[in-house]
Structures are given as C-alpha cells and as structure tokens.
C-alpha cells in the first residue's frame, strides 16, 4: 500500500533554468521597450514654379488654394470657394474663426492645451463642408504667425488633416482618424514673414 502511494507522487518541474532565461530577457526588453508611441506628420515646402493657367470666368475651374492662417486671434480661412466669401473684397474675403479666449491664451499649469483655446470644431465643420463640395482636393496651405508656438502649428495640422468625429469611408479615409479632410499640408512663410524666405 505504501509503495503504491510513493509511485503516484508527481515529480516537480525544475523551473530554475527558465527563470534564469526570463530574468536575463526582462532587462533587455525593458531597455528596448517603447511605452510612448511616436509618429510623423509629413509636410513640404511650397513648390516654386510658374502659375497654372486657369479659366478666369469659370469659378469651378479655379484651384481651391485653401489657406488657413493661424494667429493669436484665431483662424482665418481663405481660398476660391463660395463658403469662403471668395467674391468679396478686402477684409470681407475669407472666414474668420476667433478663439474661445482673448489672445488664444491657455494655462499650461491648469492642464490646458491649445485645443482648449482655438475653436477646432468650427474649423473642422467649415473644412468638412468644403471637402463635401470638392472631395478631390487634398492640399491645404498653413500660414502661421511667426511668434506662434510649434504645438499650435501641430494642432492646426491635425485639425486640417482629419475630423475624428466625421463619418469615414474605408477607401477615402485610410490612414486618418475618422474622416480625412486635407491630408497634404504645406507650410508657408507666415503672416508678416521676412522677405527672402520660402
């Protein structure tokens, strides 16, 4: 009876070699691990070349030339489109989207970012409506104020590139969060840029 009991006792697996291996692997993987994921936003300098000839009389034939100016007052969107008052003169041309707060200020200590100061929803709605009308257009020119912080420029690139709340279609919006708006961003010299720049 006793002999039978001793025979059924399972021998314990020796885990020490595996433990050794795992202990070596963990510091190595800790060093190579990335807990923050990085990405890139593609952009180019404005192309220099002769102006493209278009039919002056037909407004539909004119290139959209969508421009978003970013300043400490908010956004100003311009281009050849009826939603952008392109037929108006002087200051009436384009659409202004003011900030939520005067001077577009935000408190970094209070956990705020530029997205709390600028009216991104309004900008995305306007760009979405233009995109509905001209779905083939992909380009937008950003014209930031020279003193504007870089993070505001990145935020504006996001806002003009995609609308996370927009309805996406699989083919047209590949690589975007939500709906793709104008994914090809060109950065221009800036409001009041010194001559001899871009």
């Amino acid at each position, binding site marked *: 009876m006793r002999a039978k009991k001793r025979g059924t006792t399972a021998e314990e697996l020796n*885990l020490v070699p595996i433990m050794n291996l795992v202990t070596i692997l963990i510091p190595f993987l800790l060093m190579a691990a990335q807990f923050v*994921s990085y*990405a890139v936003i593609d952009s180019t*300098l404005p192309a220099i070349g002769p102006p493209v000839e278009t039919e002056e009389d037909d407004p539909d034939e004119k290139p959209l030339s969508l421009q978003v100016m970013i300043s400490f007052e908010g956004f100003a969107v311009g281009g050849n489109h009826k939603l952008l008052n392109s037929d108006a003169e002087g200051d009436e041309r384009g659409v202004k989207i003011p900030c939520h707060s005067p001077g577009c200020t935000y408190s970094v200590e209070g956990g705020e970012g530029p997205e709390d100061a600028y009216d991104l929803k309004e900008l995305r709605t306007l760009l979405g409506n233009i995109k509905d009308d001209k779905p083939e257009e992909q380009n937008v020119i950003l014209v930031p104020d020279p*003193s504007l912080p870089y993070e505001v420029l*990145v*935020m504006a690139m996001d806002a003009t590139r995609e609308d996370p709340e927009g309805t996406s279609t699989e083919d047209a919006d590949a690589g975007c969060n939500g709906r793709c708006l104008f994914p090809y961003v060109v*950065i221009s*010299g*800036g409001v009041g840029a010194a001559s001899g720049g871009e």
Partner: protein
Amino acid sequence: MAGKKTRRAVAEGGLTITSLMDAMTIILCFLLKSYEASDVTVTPSDDLKIPSSSALAPIKSTVQLIVSQSRILVDGEHVVNLQEYVDDEGRTTFEVPEDEKKGQLISELFNNLDRKAQDLKQIHDSTGLTEAEFKGQILLQCDRNLPFSLIREVMYTAGQAQFGEFKFVVVSTSGG
C-alpha cells in the same frame, strides 16, 4: 520520532517559484508587445518636449534634425546654440544668434546638412541601391514651445540643403 519530524519539515520548506514564474511570464509578454526595434531614437528632455498629435504615420529612419530650447543637433551632432529672449509681448521665446545667420539661412546648419546630402547621394551612386536613393527626407524633432519663426528658419535652411520633405515627429495620441 523527533528525528522524523525534522526531516519532514526540511522537505516541505523548498522555494515555490511557480507564482514568481507566472508574474515573470506576464511581464515578458507585456514587454515583448511593447518591443520596438527601431533605429530612430527620440529622447525627450526638459528642453525637448515633443508635441502630441493624432497622426498615425510610422517613423522611418533618415537624417534627424533636433531643435531643442537650447541647441540644434543633426544626427546627434551639435551644430548651433540657441538663445532665449523675451519678446515685445512679454513671452519667453528662442532664436538663433544673429551672427550664426545670413538672412533666414543658418550657416552652420546649412553646411552640415549640405554635407549630409552629398554623402547620401554618394552612397546611392556607389551602391546603386534604390533604398539608398536620396529623397530629401528629414526627421524634425522640435520642442513644442519653440516659435514658428525659428522652425521656419530651420525649414528654410534644410530646404536650401535639398531636404524639402519634412517629417515632424510627434507623440501619437492614437495609440498606434
């Protein structure tokens, strides 16, 4: 009788590492998932805070230009120091010292990038590999508080040195 009792106590006192093994296996799986075999290193510091974005495009290895609050580096090599000043509106901002510039062109940065462009072209010519073709791509890691005027000068200088395709590195908030 007393001797038997002692022997049994010693036999049961062996280290149980099964639970430790379980924990290690979970940690190993987590670390293997977050393992990133990339030769592009992004090292944020106090004077280099990368802005956040919803962008998804992955980083590809190319020439790296780092613009922090204190200096400009190309592929880890120091090029130019920046100076801090307070503008008319009372904002603390950063600029390249005037003696380092010719108009908007940052001289030392241009020389460095121009040399890089020549080297990359030479590598392509000698190897003939399509992967080594010079496309004018440059990775820009910039501090989020830098003024656009400084970024513009850096972009202009890079453009003059035939690097016209910019890839702005951002912290992805999309979890990609």
